[in-house]
């Protein structure tokens, strides 16, 4: 949903610029337990995206007056490294976009984590995008879910993230950076493993109701692959011990 100038043709004979079919995910690799100090962590490669997620906690709330005597609170910090994009040097720290993304990701895990188990505590989710190539918030959600599980934090259900977009009129799953730049619509989501609950949903661009339905169906279908990769990453962590 951006410029029309120099827009490349994004679909060729039903295939996308990188050769994928509309319902095809990029290559994904997830590794759990990659940091020593954090209570849980994960490293994720998703196409050219490179994400590292770290979990600290449950631990004492700082500052103290934010503490909830009945439940844990979740803090989430999503941030893109200044060297993460192909464009110019980015500014370090959080811009308004990053603050909004941090908020909606936090709300995903407020749903998934059993907060009542840890009154007066906080759980921190740190998400660093080391290299970005579109759909970074979906990639971060996948990394965060694996990192939380690797920290042994009890959750009602696991969560995966995935995006769909409308690319040259075609509904496609997992839009990459170039598709995102020139697509007609973009819809990132977070969905629970067991019962397909929508925990994050954003969309902008233009889609009609039937295209949105198709997007949901594609996201849920692609989710089967993502879910198994998340499970596999967690299993591998224990096999390595």
């Amino acid at each position, binding site marked *: 949903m951006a410029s029309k100038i120099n827009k490349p043709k994004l679909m060729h004979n039903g295939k996308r610029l990188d050769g994928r079919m509309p319902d095809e995910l990029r290559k994904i690799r997830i590794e759990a337990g990659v940091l020593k100090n954090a209570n849980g962590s994960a490293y994720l490669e998703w196409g050219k995206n490179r994400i590292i997620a770290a979990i600290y906690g449950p631990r004492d709330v700082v500052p103290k007056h934010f503490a909830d005597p009945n439940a844990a609170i979740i803090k989430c910090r999503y941030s893109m490294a200044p060297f993460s994009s192909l464009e110019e040097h980015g500014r370090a720290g959080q811009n308004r976009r990053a603050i*909004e993304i941090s908020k909606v990701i936090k709300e995903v895990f407020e749903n998934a984590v059993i907060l009542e188990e840890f009154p007066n505590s906080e759980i921190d989710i740190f998400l660093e995008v080391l290299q970005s190539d579109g759909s970074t918030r979906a990639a971060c959600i996948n990394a965060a879910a694996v990192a939380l599980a690797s920290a042994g934090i009890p959750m009602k259900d696991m969560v995966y993230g995935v995006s769909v977009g409308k690319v040259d009129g075609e509904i496609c799953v997992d839009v990459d950076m170039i598709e995102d730049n020139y697509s007609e619509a973009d819809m990132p989501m977070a969905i629970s493993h067991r019962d397909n609950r929508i925990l994050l949903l954003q969309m902008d661009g233009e889609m009609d109701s039937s295209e949105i339905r198709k997007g949901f169906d594609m996201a849920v279908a692609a989710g089967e692959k993502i879910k198994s990769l998340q499970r596999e990453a967690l299993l591998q962590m224990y096999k390595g011990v």
Partner: protein
Amino acid sequence: MGGINELKGAYIRSALNEGKRLDSREVFEMREIKVESDILSNAEGSARVKLGDTDVIAGLKVVVEEPHSDTPKEGNLVVSAELLQMASADFESGPPSPAAIELARVVDRGIRAGNCVNLERLFIEDGKVYSLYVDIYVLDYDGNLFDACTVAAMSALMNARLPKYANGELDRKDRNTQLEIQNVVTSTTFGKFGDNIVLDMNADEEQAADARITITTDGKTVRAMQKGLKGHFTIDEVERLIGISIKKNADISSRMGK
């Protein structure tokens, strides 16, 4: 505070189980929307919107600047929103909260994705375009700022006048050209309590809701969505709400520009 809010929330939820709201509205009934357009003479466009007791004002200023490098033949449109401290005892001073940033960005995305203004008509000459800055001030808070702010921004754009640009200068006293409005977008924000869903939450309902979803449409297609809070929606619920949102567009748009 917390205790009273919890009791109120429990009451709101139990009433909803019988399909009732405390202000006796239907579940998908919006509060009355009152729009006063063109109320400030220095701004190039303006509107004040009351949605029940929620009260917001939008002002539009036009400046001439360089276009963005990826859109050299188009003007710019930036919508932002600010929660004034006067609007609620709960609004604090200091840098904008994540909730305030979310509000501003969701309203901005809806208007941009809605392709509401013909930005090509804002081109002046190579390296010079008109930029439209719409600033929304929240004056009084009684819930559903998303929808009130979208109406305010849209209304300000509809009555805006571009100042004349000649000999390298902007003459703000000479303004006659209206913007070319291509689409009128409206947003509808729903709240979910257990399995019950309502439209247009007031402040009491907002503090008790499990989940929230804002759907912005042009009356035919969906232009933006944003789910908020820790609760969830099912895919079927989202589909149903999209249908309701598209239907409400005509009624909400008819209040604008009045």
